[in-house]
């Protein structure tokens, strides 16, 4: 099921799910292992994991009888890319600001 970026947003909109991602950033874990870290039912954890999977933040593989949850490392980008993001973000905003101010002057 492809839910696109909205799925990822939805998946991250919950503190438990964010904590699960933190856990999985250190190692792959089975549902049981993840559930042991939280004071909620295994069923609830399973639901969280499916939302994360739908958001493509994790992938799941079956090993024997267990389903192993794996954080999609390819999804993780460096802080520098955030800087790059904002760098471009502000360039665009400032260009728009300049245009808006100059347009207003012309109207006067």
């Amino acid at each position: 099921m492809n839910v696109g970026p909205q799925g990822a947003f939805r998946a991250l909109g919950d503190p438990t799910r964010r904590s699960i991602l933190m856990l999985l950033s250190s190692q792959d874990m089975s549902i049981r292992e993840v559930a042991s870290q939280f004071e909620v039912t295994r069923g609830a954890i399973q639901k969280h994991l499916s939302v994360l999977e739908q958001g493509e933040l994790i992938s799941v593989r079956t090993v024997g009888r267990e389903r192993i949850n794996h954080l999609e490392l390819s999804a993780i980008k460096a802080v520098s890319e955030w800087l790059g993001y904002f760098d471009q973000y502000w360039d665009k905003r400032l260009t728009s600001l300049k245009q808006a101010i100059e347009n207003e002057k012309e109207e006067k």
Partner: protein
Amino acid sequence: MPDTTIVKTIFLKADAETVWEFLTDKDKLGQWFHPADADLSAGSDYVLKGKADDGSTVRKCWGSVLEAKRRETLVYTFTIEPLGGALTTVTWLLQEVQGGTRLMLQHEGIEAAAGDMALPLLMALDAGWDAHLGRLRDYGK
């Protein structure tokens, strides 16, 4: 530790009063950023709103105004949807110079905000991001 503060300076052919209005007036903000619910003023929260992909109105940026010294300094906490509510700090410094105003932008705290696991993940997974970057590159040409 790399310096993670973004600093940008532009020169605007307008007096500091005009620039100030564009930074704080709710409607003027809409001309270059996103429209605000109310004019930005010291000590108050702000929300800049825009349209989501499905056409609904969503908040694009929000935070609190920490300092507002008319025609001189505007400081606010700032977050955007992909930052998941983690706050950074944006400072605008205005300086009237010959023929216009020099406007400096400082954006601090990005690294700290990005310390939240959600941030790089969101960034990476927001497929709209690539399209956004593409548009920015076109913009630069």
